[in-house]
C-alpha cells in the first residue's frame, strides 16, 4: 500500500509545496524545506527499496492502462535519477537557504520555482508516455528559465530570454516528432512504440525532430550557445541545479527514446554523428573553459564539455555486441551521476570562493588557498572526478566507456576520453595555480557560513565515493533495462 503512495508523492509533494510556498509569507518559504526534504527523501528511499525487493514495475495513473491512460515506469534507471535528484537538489536547497539571504529581492520566489522544477524533473524520470514527457519538459524548462531570470539584472534577463527561446524551439521540435509518431503508431506509450516500431520515413523524420529538439535543450555542441550565460550568470544554487540536473532531463529522454526506437530504426551513422558531436563538445567546451576569466563561466563551459561524454553512449550502444552495449550503458550512467554530483559541488564551491574574495575573476583568487582551504578542497575533489582520475566516479565512468570502445573496435573514442581528461585537468589546474600563487592582492577574505562549505564538500565527496562503490548503484540502475541485471 505504501508503495502505491510513494510513487505519485514524488511529483505531487513538490507540486503541493510549490503552491504552499506561494501562500505563506516570504519568511516561511525557505522553512518549508524542513518538511519537504525529509518527506521526499523518504519517498525516494521507499521507491528504491521496493525496486530492489519487488523488481521494476509500471504504475497506472488513474487506473487506466496505457495507451488509454498515462503510465509511469519505476525501473532502475528512473529510480537512480530520482535518488540523484533528491540528493543534489536537497543539498542545493540547504545551500540556497543560507546563500540567498544576501539576495532578498530574488530569494522569496526561488522556493516555489525550486519545488516546481523538482516536480517537473521527477515527472520526467517517471514518465512512460511521450506526450506526458512534453508537458514535463515544459514544467522543468520554464521553472529553470524563471530561476535564471530571478536576479532581474539586464544580463540575467538576456540569458533567461536566450534560454527560453532555445527551450521553446526544442520543445516544439519534440512535439512535432511526437505528432508524427502518434500518426504512425496510434499510441503515445513507449512500450507500445517499442512493440510497433518499424523503419519508415515518418519514424525517421520524427526521430530526427525529437533528437534535434532534445540536443538543443541538452546544449550539445554546436547548439550550446545559450548555456554559458544562463548557467554561468545565475545565482550559485541555481547554476548548480541547472548544470547538475536540468540538462540531464532532456538527455535522459533522448536515451529512453533511443532505446525504444533507435537500434532497429535508426541508421548507424546517426549514432556515430551523435558521438562526433559529443567529441566536438568535449574539445570545444574544454578549450573554452580554459580560456575563461570568470570562475563560474569556466565551470559553465566545463558543463558544455562534460555533456559530450554522455553522447558517446549512442555509438557505443548501437550495433555493438551485448557486452559492449552493457558497458556503454554502465559507463554513461556513471558519468551522468558523477557529473551531477561533481558539477553541483564545483558550482557551489566556486560560489564560496567568489563569496570569499568578493570577485568573480579567476585572477583575483591569488593566495586564497591560505584562507579558504576547505572551499578549495571541495573544488579540487570535484575536479578530480571531472578529470577522470581514480578513484572517482568520473574515472569509473570513463574506464567503462573505454572498455566498451575497445570491445566494439571503436578506438577513436579513446582519443576523446584521453584528450578530454587532459583539457579538464588544464582548466581545473588553472584555478588551482592562481589560488596557490602568493601575491600582494589579498590579505583578507570573507568567511562564508559553514553550511555553504559543508554542502559543497558532501557533494564533492559523493562524486568520489560513487566511484569506489560503483558496483551496487550500477546493478540497481540496470534493473528493468534491456541490459539485464547480471
Amino acid at each position: 500500500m505504501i508503495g502505491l503512495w510513494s510513487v505519485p508523492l514524488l511529483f505531487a509533494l513538490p507540486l503541493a509545496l510549490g503552491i504552499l510556498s506561494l501562500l505563506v509569507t516570504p519568511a516561511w518559504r525557505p522553512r518549508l524545506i524542513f518538511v519537504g526534504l525529509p518527506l521526499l527523501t523518504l519517498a525516494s528511499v521507499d521507491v528504491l527499496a521496493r525496486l530492489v525487493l519487488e523488481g521494476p514495475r509500471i504504475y497506472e495513473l488513474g487506473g487506466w492502462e496505457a495507451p488509454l491512460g498515462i503510465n509511469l515506469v519505476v525501473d532502475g534507471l528512473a529510480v537512480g535519477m530520482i535518488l540523484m535528484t533528491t540528493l543534489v537538489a536537497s543539498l542545493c536547497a540547504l545551500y540556497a537557504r543560507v546563500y540567498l539571504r544576501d539576495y532578498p529581492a530574488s530569494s522569496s520566489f526561488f522556493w516555489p520555482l525550486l519545488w516546481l522544477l523538482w516536480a517537473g524533473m521527477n515527472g520526467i524520470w517517471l514518465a512512460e508516455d511521450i506526450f506526458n514527457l512534453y508537458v514535463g519538459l515544459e514544467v522543468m524548462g520554464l521553472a529553470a528559465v524563471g530561476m535564471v531570470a530571478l536576479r532581474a539584472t539586464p544580463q540575467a534577463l538576456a540569458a533567461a530570454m536566450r534560454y527560453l527561446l532555445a527551450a521553446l524551439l526544442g520543445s516544439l521540435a519534440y512535439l512535432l516528432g511526437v505528432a508524427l509518431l502518434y500518426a504512425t503508431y496510434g499510441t503515445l506509450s513507449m512500450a507500445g512504440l517499442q512493440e510497433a516500431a518499424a523503419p519508415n520515413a515518418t519514424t525517421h523524420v520524427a526521430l530526427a525532430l525529437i533528437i534535434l529538439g532534445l540536443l538543443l535543450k541538452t546544449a550539445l555542441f554546436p547548439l550550446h550557445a545559450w548555456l554559458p550565460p544562463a548557467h554561468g550568470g545565475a545565482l550559485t544554487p541555481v547554476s548548480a541545479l541547472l548544470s547538475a540536473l536540468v540538462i540531464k532531463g532532456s538527455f535522459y529522454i533522448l536515451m529512453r527514446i533511443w532505446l525504444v526506437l533507435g537500434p532497429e530504426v535508426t541508421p548507424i551513422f546517426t549514432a556515430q554523428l551523435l558521438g562526433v558531436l559529443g567529441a566536438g563538445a568535449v574539445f570545444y567546451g574544454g578549450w573554452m573553459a580554459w580560456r575563461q576569466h570568470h570562475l563560474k563561466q569556466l565551470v559553465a563551459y566545463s558543463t558544455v564539455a562534460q555533456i559530450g561524454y554522455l553522447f558517446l553512449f549512442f555509438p557505443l550502444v548501437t550495433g555493438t555486441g551485448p557486452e559492449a552495449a552493457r558497458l556503454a550503458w554502465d559507463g554513461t550512467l556513471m558519468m551522468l551521476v558523477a557529473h551531477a554530483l561533481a558539477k553541483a559541488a564545483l558550482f557551489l564551491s566556486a560560489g564560496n570562493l567568489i563569496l570569499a574574495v568578493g570577485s568573480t575573476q579567476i585572477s583575483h583568487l591569488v593566495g586564497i588557498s591560505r584562507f579558504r582551504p576547505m572551499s578549495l578542497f571541495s573544488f579540487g575533489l570535484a575536479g578530480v572526478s571531472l578529470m577522470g582520475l581514480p578513484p572517482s566516479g568520473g574515472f569509473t565512468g570513463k574506464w567503462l566507456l573505454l572498455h566498451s570502445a575497445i570491445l566494439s573496435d571503436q578506438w577513436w573514442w579513446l582519443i576523446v576520453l584521453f584528450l578530454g581528461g587532459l583539457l579538464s585537468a588544464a582548466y581545473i589546474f588553472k584555478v588551482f595555480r592562481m589560488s596557490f600563487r602568493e601575491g600582494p592582492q589579498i590579505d583578507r577574505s570573507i568567511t562564508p557560513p559553514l553550511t555553504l562549505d559543508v554542502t559543497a564538500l558532501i557533494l564533492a565527496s559523493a562524486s568520489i565515493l560513487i566511484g569506489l562503490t560503483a558496483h551496487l548503484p550500477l546493478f540497481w540502475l540496470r534493473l528493468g533495462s534491456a541490459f539485464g541485471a547480471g
Partner: protein
Amino acid sequence: MSGALVFAWSGVLLFGLGLFGFIAHRHLLRRLLAFNIMGSGSFLVLVGLAQDGRGVDPVPHAMVITGIVVAVASTALALVVFRRWYRASGRTDLPEDT
C-alpha cells in the same frame, strides 16, 4: 486527399514558415509570433494526420488543448521577461555576442 490531410499539409508549411521567422527575425516580439505560428503548425499536423482516413480522434484534441495552454503560458512568460528586459536595456532584441 481528405480535409484532414489538407490541414496537416498547411501545418507542415506553417511550421516551416514559423521556423524561418523564428531564426531570421531579431525582434523578440516577432520571434514570439513565429513561435506561436510554429506551434499552431504542429497542432494541425497532430490532429490532421491522426484523423486522416480514420475519423475523429478525441485524444489529439485533448493534447492540442493542453498544447495551446502551454503555448500561451510560455508566450506570457516570454513577454514578461521581454518587457523586463526592454525596461532594463531599451532593446527589443538580444545582444549579438556568444
